[in-house]
């Protein structure tokens, strides 16, 4: 089995994000929130399990999860 990857960083493109809230709604660990500009940010990055569900469903390709092993 592949080793579980650990989160290094959320890369969020604020110009591309349209604040649809899809990633916020479906994050299993409630990591993400929209700010006052309706742009997403990682409010609780320590809870992130790097499942990438946010990344694969984002309609604007605005969020990417970078993991520790340098893999993405």
């Amino acid at each position, binding site marked *: 089995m592949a080793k579980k990857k650990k989160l290094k960083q959320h890369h969020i493109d604020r110009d591309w994000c349209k604040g649809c809230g899809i990633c916020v*709604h479906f994050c299993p660990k409630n990591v993400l929130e929209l700010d006052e500009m309706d742009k997403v940010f990682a409010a609780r990055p320590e809870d992130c399990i790097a499942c990438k569900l946010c990344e694969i469903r984002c309609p604007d390709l605005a969020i990417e999860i970078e993991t520790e092993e340098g893999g993405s």
Partner: protein
Amino acid sequence: MSTHDYLRQRFFPHMWCPGCGHGTVLNSLLRAVEQLGMSKNEIVMASGIGCSSRISGYVDFHTLHTLHGRALAFATGVKLSKPELNVIVPMGDGDALAIGGNHFIHACRRNIDITAIVMNNRIYGMTGGQFSPMSGVGINATTAPFSNIDREFDVVKMATAAGATFVARSTTFHAQQATDLIKQAILHEGFSVVEILSQCPTHFGRKNKLGAAADMMQHYKDITVPIGSSKKKDNPDLIERGIFVQEEAPEYCREYDKIIEQAMKG
């Protein structure tokens, strides 16, 4: 390569509304192409007209933005002249099955090696929310303010009946499955159809009070089941996801090559 390397990033942010499922289909498609390790130069994308068809402007492949409903005809020409290329045709539901209905069934029948992706949001988004052949009975649309009485097509049944040799369905909620199905469709030799249920929160969602984009995606989770699930027996209205048809049949370009060979012999 990363998925972003396949994009024409200068056109971003894209023109689709916040939460439009077509963006997620683009996302799933890019992942499929990346996981297959394809180069941009070996892919041709031909699209027609509609919100969905704008996808061809965003990918850094060889792209053709063609006529409403006619993308498959252009794609057929491209594929016949350059069979070594992978031809992908994303279409909206109206583009594929109303305006392009005839092109669609005959491409299925010929079994030409093209990958058709039907981004089914059950409405004409770009022109303001008119009902399409996929809307179905009871749906509200600009052109059906008292609800629609037209019965809908089932893309999967239609493609199967017309002779497509790979037929599958998924949704934007099931983005990982969508990627997997697109991968298999691209690898399949013959005409492949992948229907992806895709939300239009701006028109379909608003007119039918389905909530925000995320609610509409959640709904896809609730109304679909994997093919063969026992839940479907208790609730026949559930829509099945997965691969419905995957079979081998003579592929059109190869058959055409044989004719050329024969003709050359004189």
